[in-house]
């Protein structure tokens, strides 16, 4: 029995190198190069053209149960081999078993089975980023576990249902389309760090350079935090230049060394720009075990005063990062998750949570209402809190 890939405790770019970035307008794209290219894990795109996808998260395809609704332009199909031999990239093949398609005319819906679904012995289909987003939405989805008197009837019976979050598609982000078009893909490139107005928007890594080439344009179809849409509107091209100190150079060999140093400086600099994600502690959850690889989703610690990301990753048993895709949460999204986690940690007791957050109960109630969780509380509780304000 081979050792299983570990759960991610911190996001690290193990097995990858950072190359100097390419800037176009307010968008900075940092190429990630793989040191050792293997063929035993491949990823490919499967396009969906329906207007809406309903993902059945539990039970049968068409049956009552928890559903995830979103526009899903494409899914990813991962194929692997357990013994290190080459795997084929399968995605574009027609797959009739991938859920059911409904609707005629202008509106179409696909109902799909689960976020990650095995399709063959060594093949798995999953919905990129939606997997991570679903994990984020499902945080404390059940609602109050103790029926404290402040909670509305709805909160105690159906929990947070329906829980929604907003995001924007890549083509809404100003300049992203052009930036991706003019981007020059490196030979060993398997991923990118995408910055909008110098803020990390997303990290994307795939196992193989050929897969990356095929999936490069999907960055435009992916969804991003609303924050980045606003950043994109106001972003301007930044000028950063590395230089060679000519006092250190007295021969061509020196010049070569200094150039190497300049290149390395760019890598370090980009790594520092992305500390909001990399090197931070993660909470991870295993989704699927694929031979020596493991698909997992994660979130950073959801501290509202810092930058937070959710994402999904595939890791090899040696800890090398094979697949990564992240989503930057906006401040409001982080706040909502933070409030829920604080409530849950105190068994949903408002008084105890207020003490924990060092504020009065009324303030906490108003805070919950502002965050969009007013529907969890009884109307008179909200009114009383508002009156005493």
């Amino acid at each position, binding site marked *: 029995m081979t050792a299983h890939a570990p759960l991610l405790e911190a996001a690290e770019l193990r097995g990858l190198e950072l*190359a*100097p*970035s*390419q*800037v176009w307008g307010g968008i900075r794209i940092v*190429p990630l190069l793989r040191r050792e290219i293997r063929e035993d894990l491949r990823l490919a795109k499967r396009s969906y053209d329906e207007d809406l996808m309903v993902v059945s998260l539990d039970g049968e395809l068409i049956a009552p149960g928890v559903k995830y609704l979103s526009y899903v332009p494409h899914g990813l199909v991962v194929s692997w081999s357990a013994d290190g031999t080459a795997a084929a990239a399968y995605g574009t093949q027609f797959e009739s078993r991938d859920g059911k398609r409904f609707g005629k005319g202008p509106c179409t819906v696909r109902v799909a089975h689960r976020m990650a679904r095995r399709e063959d012995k060594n093949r798995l289909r999953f919905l990129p980023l939606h997997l991570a987003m679903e994990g984020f939405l499902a945080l404390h989805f059940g609602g109050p576990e103790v029926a404290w008197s402040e909670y509305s009837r709805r909160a105690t019976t159906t929990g947070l249902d329906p829980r929604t979050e907003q995001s924007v598609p890549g083509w809404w982000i100003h300049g992203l389309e052009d930036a991706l078009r*003019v*981007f*020059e*893909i*490196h*030979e060993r490139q398997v991923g990118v760090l995408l910055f909008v107005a110098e803020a990390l928007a997303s990290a994307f890594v795939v196992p193989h350079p050929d897969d990356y080439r095929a999936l490069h344009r999907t960055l435009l179809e992916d969804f991003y935090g609303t924050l980045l849409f606003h950043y994109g509107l106001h972003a301007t091209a930044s000028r950063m*230049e*590395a*230089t*060679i100190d*000519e006092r250190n*150079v*007295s*021969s*061509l060999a020196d*010049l*070569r060394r*200094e*150039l190497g140093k*300049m*290149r390395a400086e*760019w890598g370090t600099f980009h790594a520092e720009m992305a500390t909001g994600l990399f090197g931070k502690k993660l909470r991870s959850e295993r989704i699927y075990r694929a031979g020596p690889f493991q698909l997992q989703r994660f979130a950073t610690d959801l501290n509202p005063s810092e930058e937070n990301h959710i994402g999904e990753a595939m890791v090899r048993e040696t800890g090398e990062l094979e697949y990564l895709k992240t989503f930057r949460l906006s401040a409001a999204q982080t706040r909502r998750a933070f409030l829920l986690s604080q409530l849950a940690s105190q068994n949903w007791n408002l008084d105890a949570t207020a003490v924990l957050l060092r504020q009065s109960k009324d303030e906490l109630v108003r805070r919950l209402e502002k965050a969009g969780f007013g529907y969890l509380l009884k109307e008179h509780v909200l009114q009383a809190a508002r009156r005493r304000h």
Partner: protein
Amino acid sequence: MVTADSSTTKRIEREDMVMFINACFACTGQKEFYSDAHGQGVSIDFLHEYILGNYRRLYARCLAAGINHFNKGHVITNLLATGQLTPKAQREEEGALIFAALRELPTQRAYRVLESLRDRKINNRRARAVARRFLSERNDLAFEALKYRNKLRAATTHAHLALPGELGKFLFRGWQRQRFETPLFEKFRQAHYAKEAIYELPYTIAEGFAAKHEIPRDEFLARIEARMTIEEKLRLQQTAKRETTTLDLDLGRVGLTRLAIYLLALPVSERAKSRAVIEAAFQQASLRALRRAPRRLGRVAAILDRSFSSSGSSEKRRRPLAVAWATSQLLRAASEEYRAFWTPRLDDELQVVAQGQSDLATPLLEALAWGADLILIVSDGYENDPPHGAAEVARVFKNRLDPDRKTSIVHLNPVFDAEHYAPRSIGSAIPTVGLRDAEDLLTMLGFARFADGSAPLSELEDYLAERVKRMLRPRSQGAPQRDPSEADEAVEAANR
């Protein structure tokens, strides 16, 4: 007396002129990889107006500087549009330059210039005289009347010209009315009714008739072959293959850059199959381009950018890459020792495709280590692995390792950057010159010393005056000739 003021004016004038000529080497107003056609058009139009308004004499002299056809056409129309502003002393030279430049343009371009006079409503005595003289000196006006019917009609009506022989009847009286004495016109008339007659017409005209008579494409291509120009044959190679016929083409007769463009459109596997033919064709094309400039360059290294951005745009497919490849072939024939450094690295030049990042610094270091006298960088100037890498390497090398300037580095840029009104530069240590066709390489190298800002305005003026003199020199009949002294300039530039 030279005051500070006048020296500043001179510096500005030199910078403006260098920028303009450089732009005119590269820009064609078409879409590029990094910018759209509209931006390019606005940018180059502004430059033309600015230079015309401020330095009229030098603007006219640019016609002799080796600028590309698109910009020559622009300069001619702009000069003709504003004739009344020409000082009396310059009139004669300007008129002679306009006419010489118009005559040197490829036929279709020259007719387009004449047609654009009508579109822009330019109608003055000089414009009419230019059109009249141009038409009176054509060798085969009947052929051109057939091939450029609308343009010729536009030019004659606009300039109120009387045409000799049956031309008037053919263009204006309607071809159905009568039989023609001129065989070509008669065939044209017959081609409306008889299938056989169309094979006597030029290809572009016959193509319309083939559609009218519903002649199968393969049959048409096979029979019209004799009437096709080389360019047409080149363009239709793939069509012919699709139609399972062949168009005989001697690749050796195709121009250098054209040949590279054609080969780049072929899949790599197909290129490998006809390796010997391709190499021979390149050899012939390079020698033809160098025919009148046999003097050789010394130890030359070329850094050739084949990054993804060299794939050009939908309007200029793979042009930057083709220019790089053609330059490489030309240099191989023109230098005593030559080495090509492709980036990203490439072992077999025949397999070149536009892919990957732009790392100019590494090959520049390799070229310096090889000990080249002249290093040419053919790139669109966008450097990203690392940004400013080559700029820094060149700067430090010049300052620290080569204070005597034994090695010269020149950047040739096939792409015009609309935002900066110039081909994009790699860094201040490397002079940048625009380049549209690899065949013009030696002219561009001669110009490179002005691009790095070391030569004063007077030298630039002398340079232009010399080229004007050469252009207006009475010549024997036949094609314009490339001058041997261009090679001297290039060698001189290499030694600078």
